[in-house]
């Protein structure tokens, strides 16, 4: 059943990011040239369809409940990818009063894509690695 890992659906959530990483993610989604659809990916609008969750931003106090809600709504098995420095380590916002990150306080992060913002090629590479991890998770589940 390794064929099913060729159709990952992506969902992205912005947890208080400055939009830099979101713009870079959008270049892999809507703008010509960098193509995640080549890997079979498709951006979906609902976390319930998703297999791979892309998180941008240091988790702010306001966005934390929504992040936890999204993590509950994802069907198992799923893979979490942290896009940019912010969800990995909170970056320059670390120790700020309104930051409740980094992301691995709440869920085991499978792939970190560092950079501020990361290049589109790095994001696509991160998604390709996430697909490998997703494949392993499906195998372990059976």
């Amino acid at each position, binding site marked *: 059943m390794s064929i099913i890992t060729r*159709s990952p659906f992506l969902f992205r959530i912005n947890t208080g990011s400055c939009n830099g990483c979101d713009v870079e993610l959008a270049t892999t989604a809507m703008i010509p040239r960098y193509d995640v659809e*080549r890997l079979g990916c498709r951006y979906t*609008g609902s976390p319930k*369809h998703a*297999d791979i969750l892309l998180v941008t931003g240091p988790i702010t106090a306001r966005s934390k409940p929504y992040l936890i809600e999204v993590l509950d709504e994802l*069907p*198992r098995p799923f893979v979490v990818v942290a896009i940019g420095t912010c969800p990995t380590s909170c970056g320059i916002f670390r120790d700020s009063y309104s930051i409740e990150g980094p992301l691995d306080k709440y869920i085991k992060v499978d792939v970190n894509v560092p950079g501020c913002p990361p290049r589109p090629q790095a994001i696509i590479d991160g998604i390709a690695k996430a697909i490998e991890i997703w494949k392993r998770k499906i195998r372990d589940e059976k």
Partner: protein
Amino acid sequence: MNAEIINFLIFPGGIFAILLGLILMSVERILVARFQRRVGPVFYQNIIDIIKLFNKETLIPKDAKDFIFKFAPLFGFSGMLVLVYFLPIPGVYEGIKGNYDLIILIYFMALPAISHILGGGASSSPYAAISVSRELKLMLVYEFVFIIIGLTLAIYVGNGSGEFSLKKIMDYQLQNGYFLFDWKLWPAFLAFLIFVLATLEVPPFEVAHHNSADIMEGYLIEYSGVPLAMFEITEALKIVVLSIIFQIFFFPSVMGDDIVLNLLWFIIKTLFLIIFIALVHASLASFRADQEFKFLIRVPVTLSLLSLILVILSIKGLI
């Protein structure tokens, strides 16, 4: 197995139509990607998507109306499955040869939208509620356009009396020239293309299930796993059904008596429709909900009514 079961489950309907529709959807994605200078997925991508969704966990929200939520996709799916069995494919398949199948076709074409409305309404999500209200408004307009186009053709073929048999509409065109080349029906043809885009909900008419903008997939927001796969299969069958209707209404040309050759010719004509859809998909942005409603109520309704008036005038002998 007798011939009708094979027709329903394997050759024009059932497995063949589902696979053809899914491949056509993937081809549309590839074409959009190529128009945007990307590579795009493989040509069987949507089949993999369906296999994956069947293996995925199905989540049902706590507040959803359980029974309707689970079985709503089946309304549209069964409607489209019956239509593929029921419609004649020019030169390939005879259909059920009813005398009033155009009327039944008009009824059945509304079923996928009704399944979206039922499913979205039962899923207890505010996004789905907004999407359902939009879909209802738009459905009223584009179904109206489809009914006028159907009536126009029926009046034209029956020479004033109304001929509701699809077989006779096809035979009339094979004898008297295709409606695609008849100037009186060009406005109806344009209206039909807009109807195809509006029922398939490709970008300019995407307000009911945007996936990246305001309503987050709309009525599909709470769906996952098998019911979501059923909605995808319904979309695939809808592309096949719309292509068959397009060919019956405007261009039922055949290549001799050979079924294989005719089937290939049918698929080539379908590909032209897909190229048109992909071109519109790749080049136009989406309407706002009110803009889409105004556009649909002005342009295609006017065009189809214009065709109806021209046809009535020509039957009266005035033009």
